[in-house]
């Protein structure tokens, strides 16, 4: 019985989630491409184009450059594996599968690890474009994470003060949420932090201003320059998963409400309904952050983006954090 509860159910759940999220995130990419195409007065590809791309790439020949070493081939697999592992810690309308005390740190680690593996694969390819892309990705990564980490720890700490079972766990958002704290000061703080998270999300999925490491026209897709065939398919899937996961985090911090309670559902059916509703919220958030942002901006230079992330996002994060912390301290 213990084996069933501790191993079989989580594994089955993780496989189910992986299948669902892969489909949903690739479908979102198709919706995004269609929406952006309509904004640009184009017809756009079919909704399932990313899925077709994935299957086509998976069946194509994979070319590995002579200059590449072992990590070039290992990196896409490791990146996808990390993304799948991350699903077990991602709040998606219900408490994460492996939710435990302090797992926010695991979440942040795994999310950053995806980018790290991509960088590792790129610098192992021997291509100068991939190396420039890796340098840019690293610069953006160290600039975007501090703002997000400061904000998420502050929110977790504040929610912990309201009394939760597992403080600093990804499940706390479904017990209390940031808007419940009540005072005007913390409300303003929460709005500022929402802005910080939106900026972070845009830089995490690399759209608009932050489409710098993968700049197609400048450095020929940067990190992905040398990848082809199966490895490219894995990396594209990883990218789609990462967008879904990162958006899930923002949705569950700021808009955690489910609808299963109103429908008098419980158990597995409640989780499934909440997951579908959560996916809808993720799509709406990504529409604002990805599609609209992508259609109305171009990319910045890497120095400008780093400056923006430190001077704008990090500063906002600091102010929001102080506003949230102030009412507890005072």
């Amino acid at each position, binding site marked *: 019985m213990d084996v069933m509860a501790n191993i079989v159910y989580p594994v089955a759940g993780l496989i189910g989630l992986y299948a669902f999220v892969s489909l949903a995130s690739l479908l979102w990419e198709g919706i995004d491409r269609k929406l952006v195409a309509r904004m640009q007065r184009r017809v756009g590809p079919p909704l399932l184009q990313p899925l077709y791309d994935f299957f086509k790439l998976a069946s194509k020949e994979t070319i590995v450059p002579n200059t590449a070493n072992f990590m070039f081939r290992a990196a896409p697999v490791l990146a996808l594996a990390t993304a799948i592992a991350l699903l077990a810690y991602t709040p998606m309308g219900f408490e994460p599968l492996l939710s435990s005390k302090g797992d926010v740190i695991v979440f942040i680690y795994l999310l950053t690890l995806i980018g790290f593996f991509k960088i590792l694969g790129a610098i192992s390819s021997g291509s100068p474009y991939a190396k420039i892309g890796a340098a840019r990705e690293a610069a953006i990564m160290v600039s975007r994470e501090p703002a997000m980490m400061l904000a998420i720890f502050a929110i977790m700490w504040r929610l912990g003060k309201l009394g939760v079972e597992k403080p600093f766990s990804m499940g706390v958002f479904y017990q209390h949420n940031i808007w419940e704290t009540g005072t005007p000061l913390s409300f303003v703080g929460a709005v500022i932090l929402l802005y910080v998270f939106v900026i972070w999300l845009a830089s995490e999925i690399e759209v608009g201003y932050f489409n710098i490491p993968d700049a197609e026209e400048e450095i020929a897709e940067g990190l992905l320059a040398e990848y082809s065939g199966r490895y490219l398919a894995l990396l594209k899937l990883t990218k789609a998963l990462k967008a879904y996961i990162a958006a899930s985090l923002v949705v569950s911090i700021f808009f955690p409400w489910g609808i299963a309670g109103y429908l008098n559902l419980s158990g597995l059916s409640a989780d499934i309904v909440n997951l579908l509703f959560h996916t809808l919220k993720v799509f709406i958030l990504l529409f604002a952050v990805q599609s609209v942002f992508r259609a109305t*901006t171009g990319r910045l230079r890497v120095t400008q983006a780093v400056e923006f992330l430190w001077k704008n996002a990090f500063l906002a994060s600091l102010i929001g954090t102080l506003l949230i912390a102030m009412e507890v301290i005072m």
Partner: protein
Amino acid sequence: MTEKVEYWVKVPIGPIHPGLEEPEKFILTLDGERIINVDVKLGYNLRGIQWIAYRRNYVQMMYLVERICGICSFSHNHTYSRAVEEAAGIEVPERAEYIRAIVGELERLHSHLLNLGVVGHDIGYDTVLHLTWLAREKVMDVLEAISGNRVNYSMVTIGGVRRDIDEKGKRLILDLIKYYRSIMPQIEEVFLHDPTIEARLRDAAVVSRRIAKEYGAVGPTARGSGLKVDARWSEGLGVYPDLGVKPVLPQDVTGEKPHGDVYDRTAVRIGEIHQSLELLEHALDQMPDGKIKAFPKDNVLVAKLKIMVDGEGVGRYEAPRGELVHYVRGKKGSDKPLRWKAREPTFPNLFAIAKGLVGNQVADVVVAIASIDPCLSCTDRVAVVQGGKKIVLTEKDLLKASIEKTRELNPDVKGDPTPIGFGCAR
């Protein structure tokens, strides 16, 4: 005490690269993201056009000249016709000159809109690309309606134009002017006031006034740096003085002193779109009636040119990319040119922009190159075939050859023959 180590890397951009429209190669020496040096290599798009041209007579050559490049097909044909007209001493009817001006300005509209879209695309702002190119469809349609073709208009012939612009064509062009007047505020809003565009284009690839002058930059590249050059204005070309043409400088559009950056070059293009609309309006207004060709039939033209062309002629015209020069030399009794040479605006601009890129970032390279609107199929020209092996002569070889020739003519000549700055080392 340790010495500072410099990690410089050489990164090739091209010959085939997603950001370049045509094969050309730039070798960047990088220190991180900063550019230390730019080396330009040309010769990837050589088609031996000059060689082909010597096997054609003057009239057949027009078809060839028009196909040097797909964007400025009218400019090449127009300039070539001017060169032959000068060599043969042919008088062009006034109505033909007006029609030439009209088609030339329409072509400038479409070329500038194309370039604005490309600049948007190169900074990852694809919405701008799609919307400006949507606006460009209008002028393409009008060109098709009045000339029969979207790309190679075949409007010009030696001694006039092939097709007249009738009342229907006039109406279409007036419609077009109204259409562009209505959408230009939006295009201006995007290219002059959008925060992304301003952040990316301001102070990118600055070509100072001095560099523009030294490297002989022409067209919007030179005007963006504050040089007052425009072949239509300085030469008093055709009927352009009557239409009131004058060089558009960045301060006319932005109201600031010229910086010589990508933003200014874009601003000049926007100013020129406005100017082209005005010129079109004036030209339609003032166009007189009369003949449109000096010789009604092409076979007469071929026969006449055989007798009339004696000596040399130079045609100059301000193509959308800058001043275009065609040189033609012929001999009485031959229907083929002895010598024909086209000098394209891209060549000097390319080296000026390569100089301007030093000290900028990798991110600026593609947009800076797009900002001079390079036309490499126009530029690649010289090749020597020796024993079945192709050798492409470039700046350095030509410089060496000219130094040798100078030494041969005058062994006492003083001066340092090494090239200043960088060139195309090969």
